[in-house]
């Protein structure tokens, strides 16, 4: 899992059952459209995300139906597990106290 994918999944995990729009995710992750959509495509293809047509009446709302994305049940599970694994991998090592503190500097 690349960091960019992790960033997107993290955004979804904030509220695992919410549906998100593409532009909404662009703003939340700071990714431009050409970066975000390929990531969404990979996640949809892997079965982690579901892509659906928004359930609205375009003539009443006065706008076309957008596409919404949400985590699948499997997606919630995998995203949580992989993000935990990734954050453990990327956690900085515990500082070496003997090197940080000068010799006999413990007062």
């Amino acid at each position, binding site marked *: 899992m690349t960091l960019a994918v992790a960033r997107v999944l993290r955004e979804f995990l904030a509220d695992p059952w919410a549906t998100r729009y593409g*532009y909404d995710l662009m703003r939340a992750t700071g990714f431009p459209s*050409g*970066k975000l959509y390929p990531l969404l*495509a*990979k996640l949809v*293809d892997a079965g982690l995300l579901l892509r659906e047509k928004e359930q609205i009446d375009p003539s009443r709302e006065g*706008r076309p139906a957008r*596409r919404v994305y949400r985590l699948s049940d499997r997606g919630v599970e995998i995203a949580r597990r992989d993000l935990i694994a990734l954050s453990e991998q990327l956690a900085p090592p515990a500082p070496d106290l003997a090197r940080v503190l000068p010799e006999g500097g413990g007062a």
Partner: protein
Amino acid sequence: MRLTVMTAAVVSLAVALFSQPITEMFHEEIRTRLSRLPNALIFLIALRFPREIRRDLVDEWTAELLAVVSDTEGLPVTRLLAGLEYAWDLYRFRRADARMLTGIRRRRPHPGGPLPPLPDDDLIWGAERHAVRIKRLERSRATLLAMATVFVWVIATAGGVGYHYYLAYVTPPNFSGPGTGSVVVQIKPGQSATAVGDRLAALGVVASARAFSNAANSSPEGEALEPGT
């Protein structure tokens, strides 16, 4: 003279009256066209994808574009830039991405397969597009047939020519009959039948070197061709 002055006056009045509205009309036209530039860009980018995927993508991106520019009412330049930024970057979206996103795989009918049925989802243009697709398919089928024919022809010709040369090599021209006269040929120790054949051919005893080595191989003494003269 008075008529010319009158005409000039009328023309200048008309220009004064209409120039501004006409200019404004042009401005409005340009403004509207510019504001539609992101949509045009989205459509252009979507042209790279197969038609069955294209409609879905254009739907999604156009709807998102509205959201992108939704909070820029009254800021035409910001609106245009935001829209262009969104639309332009979609250029990085690849065909493989499109297939993964929509789950639609390429359905290109094989030229050898059955002709596709008439689609019923597109009532107005469906039949016309279908006719075009059938024509294209038939053309590719004809191309395939032509290529297969040419291929078979080339293989057959190459085989025929090759067989001709092969025959000439294996059973070369030879003189018939026992022959007359005598020639003294020295065969050196270790010289092969082919080498002897070459020498004999040069002297005109046999018609070709290959004929001699064939004769040597087929005669029982061929193995025992002894050095000497």
